[in-house]
């Protein structure tokens, strides 16, 4: 059976045979970069369309249904509009930082793509500190937001950036602790090891209630980290017009918009990898026949299915819950999520030590 991993491997061998190792690596860098960028564009188109359709159906509307077949070309039309618009730089802005901020945010998302396993044996960079790498790099994206808010020279942008920064910094804690509970159970930071440990069942089933709690906390915390409703204080339209990207227009705005959706994809992919087994098919104990049928579904389909399910859940949150106030936001983190996840971490450690998980 032809798989993505085999194609990638044969390409790698051909490159290694044709060029010197250094140059082959360089060519691979360029190839992977191009692939990631085109994947970003694809993600942007699909996720924006998905969000608009999901929100429409949840609000008893129809959603985009004019451009293309059932409105599928709507986001393409929007993108073309954004590309041909003028990218304005305000007079009072710090020109260099203003123009650099959208790219910094997007570069961070690109870096985060590296350790994600999209299919069996198909991964850009099998790094042995995968989870740590992700929490390290994701902390750079907040700098992009702060930079954009500062350099716009606009009070709404600055306030939005401050809120966004405070929010990301505080919710990183619970997200990190939730990730840590799976790391404790597996005993490794590498995403490949984490997936391999879920061969006989996903952690959300194997780890009893504590892992389910950390899964819920993870989902809440990453919703806050990606600045999405109900935690979208950073761009609360009624208070701050558009938050940190108030002054951006055209393609530079599109980059922020794209980065938001790519970040959602990334956090959901990581959540799917940690708790739902990544590309691992659904296996139930000793049901040989059932397990064999599940193995026939390609691993990339499993991965994408789980990721898009989590993305749907996050969109579901957005179109159901009202926005929190800033004090409610901080209460939720410091009074509820953090103590619960700390206690939960102790429970998980106890379970891991006693070997009570399946």
């Amino acid at each position, binding site marked *: 059976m032809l798989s993505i991993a085999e194609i990638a491997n044969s390409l790698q061998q051909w490159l290694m045979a044709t060029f010197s190792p*250094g*140059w082959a*690596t*360089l060519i691979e860098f360029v190839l992977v970069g191009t692939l990631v960028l085109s994947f970003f564009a694809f993600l942007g188109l699909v996720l924006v369309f998905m969000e608009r359709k999901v929100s429409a159906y949840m609000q008893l509307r129809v959603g985009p249904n004019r451009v293309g077949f059932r409105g599928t070309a709507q986001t393409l039309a929007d993108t073309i509009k954004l590309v041909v618009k003028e990218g304005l730089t305000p007079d009072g802005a*710090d020109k*260099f*930082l203003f123009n650099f901020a959208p790219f910094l945010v997007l570069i961070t998302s690109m870096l985060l793509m590296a350790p994600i396993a999209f299919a069996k044996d198909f991964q850009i960079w099998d*790094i*042995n*500190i995968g989870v*740590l*790498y992700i*929490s*390290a*790099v994701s*902390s*750079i994206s*907040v*700098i992009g937001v*702060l*930079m954009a808010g*500062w*350099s716009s*020279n606009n009070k709404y942008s*600055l306030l939005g*950036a*401050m809120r966004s*920064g405070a929010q990301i*910094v505080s919710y*990183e804690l619970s997200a990190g602790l939730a990730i840590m509970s799976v790391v404790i159970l597996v*005993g*490794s*930071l*590498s995403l490949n090891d984490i997936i391999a440990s879920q061969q006989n069942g996903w952690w959300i089933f194997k780890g009893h209630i504590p892992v389910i709690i950390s899964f819920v906390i993870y989902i809440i915390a990453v919703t806050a980290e990606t600045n999405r409703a109900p935690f979208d204080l950073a761009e609360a339209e009624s208070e701050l017009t558009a938050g940190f990207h108030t002054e951006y227009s055209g393609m530079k705005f599109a980059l922020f918009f794209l980065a938001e959706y790519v970040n959602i994809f990334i956090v959901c992919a990581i959540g799917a990898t940690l708790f739902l087994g990544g590309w691992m098919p659904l296996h139930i104990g000793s049901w040989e026949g059932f397990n064999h049928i599940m193995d026939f579904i390609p691993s990339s389909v499993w991965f994408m299915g789980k990721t898009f399910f989590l993305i749907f859940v996050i969109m579901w949150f957005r179109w159901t819950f009202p926005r929190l106030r800033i004090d409610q936001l901080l209460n939720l983190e410091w009074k509820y999520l953090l103590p619960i996840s700390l206690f939960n971490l102790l429970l998980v450690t106890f379970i891991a030590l006693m070997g009570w998980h399946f």
Partner: protein
Amino acid sequence: MSVSAMFFYGLSAAVLISALLAVTSRNIFRSAIFLLFSLVSIAGIYFWMDYQFIAAVQTIVYVGGIVVLIIFSIFLTQQAGVDLPTPLRGRLFFAALASLCGFLLVTLQLLAHPFRKGAEPAMSKDMKAIGSGLLSTVENGYALPFELMSILLLAAMVGCIVIALKPNTVTE
């Protein structure tokens, strides 16, 4: 020159140039951003050396912690958007002298140090080894510093809570 060496020189140039810009920029926010570039490039050099754990920790501590803290304090400072005044000629001279002395000292030390390839194998890069090293009490173990740091951080957190606590207005 191999591709690997090109990467090293590129990263080193990035570290040096952004560090220089961080010092010479008249706008304090830009200085912070250039400092960030410099620190990220150092993390890049760690990645190039394949010391991934140190690279990730460098990114978490410096980028996620310290630079964000610096930027927040800049945001909360009044008149942070105004360019700094050019320093006095005399101060500039002494600052340059001081940094030149520091540079010379480091360079002399580096030139005097005989770099030789160590006979012992390189330190393990395995995460398990690092983790147990942090908790071991025998030789090369870091249990004591680790626990001391935890106590220090705990004390800092308790202090923060005490400062942030609202004073009890109604007391008997």
